[in-house]
């Protein structure tokens, strides 16, 4: 049996602790955390201490470490592209980058170019596209993507802390603990909030949308929803897409994706992130009342890690090549830009 692939984390924050460490713990026969780098040395040390045999180091040291096969880029968004490229050029065998894997189209192109030279597989942490229920439903009912007239994403989530507290023992943020006043930045504009939502929450939905919208669609309407959320309407050749989100709320989570076609209907309900609650439940209903559902005990994060390990070990080709991921980003940026233009025109 091969040794487990060594994993090095660039960034020891909440997503690393609440999402990736529990996932890797379940997959310890194939993947093992060996190094952790973070600008906050205390956080890096605390995370490494939970992983037997792992050490803390700088990012450069992590990239030079031959025991690190896979680099996880889980740092602030604006650092993603440069760190992904650094990992590729360091000769790593694989990269898992948290969403978004770049913040501009130019950054995305640079990653694509670097990958073309070095052939390193990259997986982006948009876990819903790897969710077994989505994969099964969308594969079996491919024609729905052409026939659908209305496609909808609705995301209603309680505060993340509710789920991170169930996934780890992460204490409150340092700023909140210290009791010291936190520097107050100017409040973001509605356009900025929507951009954050599209490149953040909606990143999970974009790969789904792109199965239905084959060109960058026109943004027909963009609304900011207080206290934090969005309502976007997109259109392509008479096909309507709606993206709704509102966070946080005091209710239970509801994370749905729906597609309506004259002959079939797709409904997917995802569990919240952070907790290992299994896959979504996906149901396809067809004319005559017949329906079929899929559900798995494995969630999208587990499946994307398994997939990356399979790709590195040469068992399967990459399911979502980096160009496809770059196209996802271009699509998302198009949504954000379209929303910007509409909101600015109403000022």
């Amino acid at each position: 049996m091969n040794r487990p692939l060594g994993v090095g984390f660039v960034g020891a924050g909440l997503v690393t602790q609440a999402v990736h460490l529990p996932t890797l713990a379940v997959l310890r026969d194939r993947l093992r955390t060996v190094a952790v780098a973070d600008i906050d040395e205390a956080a890096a040390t605390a995370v490494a201490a939970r992983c037997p045999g792992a050490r803390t180091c700088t990012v450069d040291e992590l990239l030079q470490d031959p025991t690190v096969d896979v680099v996880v880029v889980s740092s602030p968004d604006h650092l993603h592209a440069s760190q992904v490229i650094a990992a590729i050029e360091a000769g790593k065998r694989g990269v898992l980058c948290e969403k978004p894997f770049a913040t501009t189209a130019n950054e995305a192109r640079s990653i694509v170019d670097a990958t073309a030279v070095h052939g390193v597989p990259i997986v982006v942490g948009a876990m819903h596209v790897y969710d077994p229920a989505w994969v099964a439903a969308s594969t079996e009912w491919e024609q729905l993507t052409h026939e659908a007239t209305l496609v909808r994403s609705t995301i209603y989530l309680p505060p993340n802390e509710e789920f991170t507290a169930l996934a780890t023992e992460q204490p409150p943020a340092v700023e909140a603990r210290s009791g010291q006043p936190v520097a107050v930045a100017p409040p973001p504009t509605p356009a900025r909030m929507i951009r954050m939502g599209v490149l953040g929450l909606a990143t999970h939905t974009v790969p789904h949308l792109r199965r239905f919208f084959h060109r960058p669609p026109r943004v027909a309407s963009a609304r900011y929803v207080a206290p934090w959320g969005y309502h976007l309407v997109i259109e392509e050749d008479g096909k309507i897409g709606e993206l709704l989100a509102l966070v946080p709320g005091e209710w239970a989570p509801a994370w749905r994706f729906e597609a309506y076609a004259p002959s079939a209907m797709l409904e997917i309900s995802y569990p919240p992130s952070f907790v290992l609650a299994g896959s979504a439940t996906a149901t396809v209903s067809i004319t005559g009342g017949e329906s079929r559902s899929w559900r798995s005990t494995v969630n999208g994060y587990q499946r994307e890690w398994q997939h990356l390990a399979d790709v590195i070990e040469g068992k399967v080709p990459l399911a979502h090549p980096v160009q496809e991921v770059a196209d996802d980003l271009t699509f998302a940026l198009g949504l954000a830009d379209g929303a910007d233009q509409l909101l600015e025109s109403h000022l």
Partner: protein
Amino acid sequence: MTAALLVQVPATGFTAVHTATLASLPDTFRPVANGGAIVTVDGRSGWTERAALGVRAGARAVIVDRPEPDDIGRVVALRDLAKDRGVLVAVESPYAGSPTWSSCQSAVIQDASSSCLIDSVAVVADAEDMDRALLAQMAVVRPLLGTTTLRRLMAGAATLVTRDGDAVVSISVTVSVQPRLTLDVVSARVRWRIELPNDETAQPGRASREDVAGRRAERPIFCSSSRWQWRAVAARLAGRDEPVYDLDSLLLDLRLLSSA
């Protein structure tokens, strides 16, 4: 025991759900070929003329089945005629007439006043029914909005209507399997999720309210909206003050829809 109300059953256009409704209320209604106290009218094109004929023929009540949008002036004329003659014109609405909706409507309206998002999707089996479904959808959504105007953003294979106000409003109709209406009314504190099946069977709707204390679901009522509304019509004819979706309410919905 009160005598059954005679229902004039048309030769065509009487739906299976109406047959089931009458069969389940045998002491209240009795179908006849001619001269009933209650006249049923198919809500497709020309329904205002057919309903007016029923009013003039001396019916005590006219039930219009799922009307499609008609000229507001013609509906006003029908309403005035019916009032002059003392005839009840009830509008059978697949969603607003749902017993599930009846049981939770007032609570939803109360929560909607502080909501930031109202989202409804109607699914119909046949593209020809989209306009009727959108009008029927208004009967549920309009009471949540108060006085407002709408904006028709898209029309075609799917229709989308929104509102330019404080709360985001999305009202869409599309063609697919499993005809139904869904409604989400969301604020940061409370979220309602309501699913009303199409009025073909006694399959119950589902309505639940979630807040920090948890989820409370309405008890399922296995009764079609048709049966629910016909019982209300019978109660009104018996002199009881039972709410009925009537032409005044329909006119509010028509006017709101025509603003889009």
